[in-house]
C-alpha cells in the first residue's frame, strides 16, 4: 500500500518535521518506491512466530544500586543552544 500526501503530512507532524508540500511529495515518491519493493514481506507466513527485538537474548541487566558521579552542571549545559543561571532556556511553553 502507498502513502498519500495527507498521510505524509500527518507523519511529518508526528515526527515534528516542518516540511513543504513540495518536499513531502518528493519524499513520498521515494518512500512509496521503497515500500513497494519490500511488499513481499507481507506475504510471508508469520502467524505462530515470536517476534525478535534483540539478536542476543538479554532480558534483564541489573547492577548494584550505587550512586555514580553525574556530569557537572557546567558541562551538561556547555552544548545548550541557550542557557542561563544553570538552566536550559527554551521558548515559552505555558500560555498566560
Amino acid at each position, binding site marked *: 500500500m502507498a502513502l498519500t500526501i495527507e*498521510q505524509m503530512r500527518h507523519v511529518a507532524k508526528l515526527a515534528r*518535521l516542518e516540511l513543504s508540500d513540495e518536499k513531502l511529495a518528493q519524499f513520498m515518491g521515494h518512500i512509496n518506491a521503497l515500500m513497494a519493493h*519490500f511488499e513481499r514481506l*507481507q506475504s*510471508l507466513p508469520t502467524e505462530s512466530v515470536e517476534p525478535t527485538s534483540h*539478536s542476543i537474548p538479554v532480558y534483564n541487566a541489573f547492577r548494584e544500586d550505587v550512586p555514580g558521579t553525574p556530569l557537572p552542571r557546567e558541562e551538561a549545559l556547555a*552544548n545548550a543552544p*541557550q542557557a542561563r543561571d544553570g538552566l*536550559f532556556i527554551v521558548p515559552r511553553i505555558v500560555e498566560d
Partner: protein
Amino acid sequence: MELHEYSLLELSERLRRREISAIELTEAVIQQIERLEPQIQAYITLTPDLAREMARQAQARLDAGEWNPLLGIPVAIKDNISTRGIRTTCASRILQNYIPPYDATVTARLKQAGAVILGKTNMDEFAMGSSTEYSAFHPTRNPRDLSRVPGGSSGGSAAAVAAHMAIAALGSDTGGSIRQPAAYCGVVGLKPTYGRVSRYGLIAYASSLDQIGPMTKTVADCALMMNVIAGKDPLDATSVEVPVPDYREALRADVQGLRLGVPREFFAQGVQPEVAQTVRRAIDQLADAGAIVEETSIPMVEYGLPIYYILAPAECSSNLARYDGVRYGLRVGAELGHIGMMERTRAEGFGDEVIQRIMIGTYALSAGYYDAYYLKAQKARTLLRQEFDRAMAQFDALLCPTAPTPAFKIGELISDPLAMKLMDVLTIPVNLTGLPALSVPCGSVDGLPVGLQIIGKPFDEPTVLRIGYTYEQLTRQ
C-alpha cells in the same frame, strides 16, 4: 617503504624495539594526511596538535619501559563515536558544533592503551547510507580510484586506512557500514557480535543493530584492536558478559578440517558475475588449504532488506527524537514557540535521507500500522535467525561476497536511493542476526578491490579471524 605504510603489528614491534619513536611515527602519518587529505577528504575534524601531544605522552610511557600493541599507534575514529572535547558531528548539521562532554567506552579504552587520536572521520549522516555521499559536509573519495565512492557509512575510516592516513580506525556497522567500505577500499573490517563491544558513547542509529568495530590494514591488526575494545561494559546494558579471548591466538594460518558453508543465495541477489568468481576463487584457495567447503542455503536472506528497512527506520525515528533544539545541537526558530522550534530545527538540521528514514519509522510505528509493519518485521527477523542458526549448526563459518559490486562512481546512485540500498543486501542479514563478520580483501575486478565476507557463530570472532588470517597468508606471496 615509508613509516606510515607499515601495519599496526609491524609498527608496534618497531616501537617496542625502540627502532622508531611514537613522535616520528605520528609526524609521518600527519605528513601523509597533509599530502593526500585535500583530494581524499576522509576526515571531518583533524586534531594534529592533540595527536602530537598524545604521541609525546605515549613515547614517555615507552621510555619508562611500558608497552602494549596500541601504545603510540595513530588511529582515526568515526565521527559518530564520542570523543571528550573533540567535536563529534555524525556528519550532520544538527550536531555541527556538538562537543561531547564524555568519551565513548571504546575511545576511553584506546586512550588508556596509549593510541594517538588523529581526528574524526567522514561518514553518511547518522550512519545512514552506503557511499559517504550523504555526509552534510563533503563526500570522501576512494583512494584506489578517486572518481569512486569509498563505500559507507564508515567511508572516511576505510579511506583513511587505505591511504595510510591512519594506521587503524574505528567504524560502526548497522547494515554493513564497516564491511562494505572495507571491501570497496581494500582494507580489513570486522563487525563484532552484537554485544561484544560497548556501544556507550556511540551516537545511536538503530540500537538493536549498531556495533562498533575495527578497520585495519591486516587481519592481525584487527585482532590487536579487538583485544583493546572488546568486553562487557557496565555503561552498556546490551554488552554481554562473555569472556574475552586473546584474539592474537586466533592468528594461525590453518583451516585444516574447518567446515565452511557457502550459501548460494549470497551469490544471486544482483551479485556481479566477476565479483562472484573472484570470491569463489578465494574460497577454492581455502579448500585447497584443507577446509571442508560445502554449498548451503539460507532462503530467508531475500527478506533481509525488507526487514531491515522497517526495523532500522523504526529504531532511528525513536533515537533521533532527542534532536529537538532544547539541550544541545542546532536550534532554529526559537520565536515560533516550542513546537515550531522543534519542527524547524529538525527540518533544517537533518538531511533528506535521514528525514525519510525518520518518516518511514514513524509511519511503521504509528497507530494502526504497528502490527502490519513493525511486528511483522520482528517476526520475520525470528525466521531469518532460525535459518542462520540451522546453517551455523552445520558449519564453523559461512563464506560469501561482502558487496554485490566493487565501488561505484561518485554521483552514480545518488538519485536512485533504492539501488544504493541494494548495495547492503549481503551485509544486512548479519546485523539482523547479530553474528560476527569480517571482510577481507580477496583480489580485484577491473582494478577495484573485492571483499570476502566471513560470517561466524556468536562470539566466535577467533574462528572468523583465523580464516581471514589464513587467506591473507596464502595470498601474501
